[in-house]
């Protein structure tokens, strides 16, 4: 029996010696809070562990009874430890103890901060154009007392000029737990998809949350006022006054009004399962923000067919102040260029999440009212009646206007005048006993209405999404200017994840058209069918990606347009495009570590009409692209990458003409780290050759370094020279960049 015990002890110690325990918490020699101290070690992979033979000591005191022990781990959670140095000893089996120390401190510091300062300069000389940009970015953030966070976002750039909208960024954010976030300066507020969705605003952006109550308020400037180039600030004509004296009639040019915005969103619901929001956005150009008389602005005077102005010499440059009484200034409503705008958007949105967010439903509806020129102010009700329908006074279609409010009383909300787009938001023929348009159709086809809905389900690795959206041709939000208008679309897509995310199949269909207004006769449409297969079988095996897209476009025109001179014009568009992409990636070790990638793309677009005239500009085209790249990491530790791309296209080059263009590019890059990665040196060579419609070639060299001067201070520089020959003409490109970065 004694022999057996000795044998077991020996066997146990041999097995235990094969693998050591892993200290999981606290780290040796670490400094931690004395609250909720977790002592944990892992014995994973060790054999012969008997939890009953484990002993855990803290500062020499046996705390084994407080610990949880099994064959994989030992853990012990202690509420509070006094500040100071502590030692842990753990005895497992018959070997000596595993010993380590750590220090506990009082509460964590109440103020934490960090930041980064980055300066960069770039010089781009491309052919005959040179662009130099320098900028400094300062990002600072921190927290205090666990309930306050703050952040700055500052960028100062040489691109900042009075002629353009701000390029400098000056933003400060303070957050009080999750209850309030206040941004002052530049920020990118998002209220909803249609009203305000990330455009930069300079002003106040405040968000308040309290349980199910959410309030988001934005007030500031979308555009600042720009007087424009003083040499192009005026255009003129020569007019004659009542006394027969000629004078210059000056109109302002090249200006931008200050555009102010106020927006808000009131939402009910936490958003996890339900949220309903009401949104509004009000933006208006400030007509007083652009100066009528710019004394330093200049004009070049020259008489015209109507005559000349006495005292002015042809071809002479005059400042506006020098013109004196020889110039009259046109009122703003007669200025050239875009008129000052007024815009109001109201909307509502709803979001619902069910089954632990596996089913999500959301939708939004918004209506805009836009005035494209508010010079002259609002119309009265009588003027409006006359303008829209002057057959009967106080009647607009079947409506009695006598009880309607006068729009002039509401000019603070929206200035209503003939420049409204649309003047009446809904087809008035949908109302009254003699209505000629269905009311539902009239509502759904309102030109300044936008709405969307989406349903997403995620069950059993199957991600199914259904979406519908429509944005009317006159829908306009000045705070969201990049929204695509006059588009209606619906789509369905399904993504399957199989074999533990190693095989993914994607199927999708999208239909888009402009069939929004009831008066549309020729509907432009596009159908897109897509299929994707992604196979990622696992380590050591290549990944395969295949994508197919079929795109059909039709502009609704099926007949030639006959012109008055017996000729015709062909505006018909009906094309079909097939787009196939196959990509294979493989990472493997062969002496060194490599990543090899090959991609093939084929795009073929065909014209569905076969009866085109000989001189028709054929929309059909085809393109094939082959790309091969190889990245190698050597043991020394050099990294190189080689990339080769061949592109061949065949397309129309003009009426009745077709041509081909072939393009080959190849580049080789290498990088090598020195001094324990403190210095990274990069270099490369690239070349290209194009033949066919355009003959061209280039040869380029590039190089650079990334130098970590200190842990928190680094320098990054790179330069590129490219000698290009196009159509027998040589031109050079030089690009140089440098940036310094300091973190604290």
């Amino acid at each position, binding site marked *: 029996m004694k022999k057996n015990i000795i044998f077991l002890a020996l066997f146990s110690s041999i097995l235990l010696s094969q*693998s050591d325990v*892993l200290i*999981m*918490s606290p780290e040796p020699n670490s*400094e931690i809070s004395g609250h*909720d101290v*977790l002592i*944990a070690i*892992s014995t*994973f*992979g060790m054999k012969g562990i008997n939890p009953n033979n484990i002993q855990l000591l803290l500062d020499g005191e046996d705390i084994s009874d*407080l610990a*949880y022990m*099994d*064959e*994989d*781990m030992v*853990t012990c*959670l202690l*509420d509070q430890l006094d500040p100071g140095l502590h030692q842990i000893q753990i005895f497992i089996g018959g070997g000596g103890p595993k010993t380590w120390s750590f220090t506990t401190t009082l509460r964590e510091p109440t103020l*934490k901060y*960090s*930041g*980064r300062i980055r300066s960069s300069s770039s010089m781009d000389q491309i052919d005959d154009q040179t662009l130099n940009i320098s900028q400094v970015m300062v*990002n600072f*953030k921190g*927290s205090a007392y666990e309930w306050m*966070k703050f952040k700055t*976002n500052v960028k100062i750039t040489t691109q900042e000029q009075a002629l353009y909208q701000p390029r400098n960024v000056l933003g400060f954010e303070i957050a009080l*737990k*999750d209850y309030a976030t206040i941004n002052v300066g530049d920020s990118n507020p998002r209220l909803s998809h249609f009203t305000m969705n990330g455009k930069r605003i300079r002003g106040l952006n405040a968000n308040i949350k309290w349980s199910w109550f959410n309030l988001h308020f934005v007030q500031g400037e979308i555009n600042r006022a720009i007087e424009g180039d003083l040499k192009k600030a005026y255009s003129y004509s020569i007019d004659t006054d009542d006394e027969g004296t000629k004078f210059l009639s000056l109109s302002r040019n090249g200006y931008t009004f200050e555009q102010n915005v106020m927006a808000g969103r009131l939402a009910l619901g936490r958003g996890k399962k339900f949220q309903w929001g009401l949104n509004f956005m009000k933006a208006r150009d400030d007509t007083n923000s652009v100066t009528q008389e710019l004394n330093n602005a200049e004009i070049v005077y020259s008489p015209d067919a109507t005559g000349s102005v006495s005292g002015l010499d042809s071809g002479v440059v005059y400042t506006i102040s020098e013109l004196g009484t020889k110039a009259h200034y046109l009122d703003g409503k007669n200025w050239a260029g875009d008129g000052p705008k007024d815009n109001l958007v109201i909307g509502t949105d709803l979001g619902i999440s069910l089954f632990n*967010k596996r089913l999500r439903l959301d939708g939004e509806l918004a209506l805009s009212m836009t005035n494209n020129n508010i010079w002259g102010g609002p119309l009265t009700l009588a003027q409006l009646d006359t303008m829209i329908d002057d057959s009967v006074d106080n009647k607009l279609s079947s409506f009695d206007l006598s009880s309607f409010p006068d729009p002039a009383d509401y000019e603070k909300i929206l200035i209503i005048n003939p420049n409204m787009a649309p003047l009446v938001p809904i087809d008035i023929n949908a109302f009254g006993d003699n209505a000629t348009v269905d009311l539902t159709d009239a509502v759904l086809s309102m030109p300044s209405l936008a709405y969307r809905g989406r349903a*997403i389900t*995620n069950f059993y690795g199957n*991600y199914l999404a259904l979406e519908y959206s429509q944005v009317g041709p006159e829908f306009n939000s000045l705070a969201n200017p990049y929204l695509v208008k006059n588009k209606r679309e619906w789509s369905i897509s399904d*993504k399957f*994840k199989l074999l*533990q*995310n190693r095989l*993914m199949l*994607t199927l999708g269909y999208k239909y888009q058209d402009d069939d929004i207004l009831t008066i549309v006769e020729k509907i432009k449409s596009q159908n897109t069918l897509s299929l*994707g297969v*992604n196979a*990622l079988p*696992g*380590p050591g095996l290549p*990944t*395969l*990606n295949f*994508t197919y897209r079929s795109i059909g476009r039709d502009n609704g025109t099926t007949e030639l347009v006959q012109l008055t001179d017996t000729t015709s014009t062909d505006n018909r568009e009906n094309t079909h495009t097939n787009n196939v992409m196959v*990509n294979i*990636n493989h*990472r493997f070790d062969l002496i060194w570590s490599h*990543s090899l*990638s090959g991609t093939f793309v084929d795009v073929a677009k065909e014209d569905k009409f076969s009866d085109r005239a000989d001189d028709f500009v054929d929309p059909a085209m085809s393109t094939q692209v082959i790309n091969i790249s190889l*990245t190698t990491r050597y043991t020394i530790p050099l990294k190189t990458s080689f990339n080769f791309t061949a592109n061949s296209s065949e397309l129309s080059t003009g009426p009745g003409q077709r041509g081909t263009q072939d393009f080959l590019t190849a580049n080789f890059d290498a990088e090598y780290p020195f001094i324990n990665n403190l210095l990274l040196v990069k270099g490369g060579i690239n070349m290209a050759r194009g033949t066919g419609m355009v003959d061209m070639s280039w040869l380029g060299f590039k190089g650079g370094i990334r130098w970590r001067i200190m*842990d*928190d201070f680094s320098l990054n520089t790179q330069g590129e020279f490219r000698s290009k020959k196009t159509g027998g003409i040589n031109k050079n490109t030089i690009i140089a960049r440098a940036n310094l970065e300091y*973190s*604290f």
Partner: protein
Amino acid sequence: MKRILILCLSLCSISTASSKIALTIKVNGKVFVIDEANSVKQPLKPGTPLKDKDKILTGKNGFVAIMYLDDKSVVKMLGNSDLTVSGKRSGTQINKSLDIKYGKIAASISPQKGNEFRIATPTSVASVKGTELTIDSQPGIGDSFTLLEGLIEVTNTITGESTEVENGETAISTPEGSLEVHETTTDDLAGFEDADVEIPTQELRFEVEDEDGNIKEIIIRFQ
């Protein structure tokens, strides 16, 4: 004592010796674990072992750090996150993967001997061998993978496009299928302050000598 009793009870109820893969080492705020087998949702406590396919949910101010048992790879979840930890025990190793449904995750992955650490989101799959990174996954917006150290390969599962992401770079992968890599900016790490991933602790050491010739060292640690 009450806390220890609760911990022991939860250890007993949650764990089974054969399938443990990781350990909960830190918890702040509301954090829950859901056992795949019985779908029971329980508060997660420090010291609680985690099994293959355990799902972890954090509340809006929640934070949890877990550590794998075999190599001390650490995964930190910030508020409003949903993550399933997976791991297959194979000898002295665990073949690990994370399935992020949404949220912010910071991970410090030890080198995986011959295996890959797979991180999947609704939009992307990342193959990790040994690295430190942050992941911000928002369905509808996409994923952001920021590399603080090492190298990963990110694949957009909509298009299948793959790219390597290196130290100091951030990959943005969107549900629309785009996959772009840019140099990491402060904005890419916004919201990860609580995960302590941004600035490593630095140390200044000064040696001072008194009149008797004794040398003492002053150590200042700062972030």
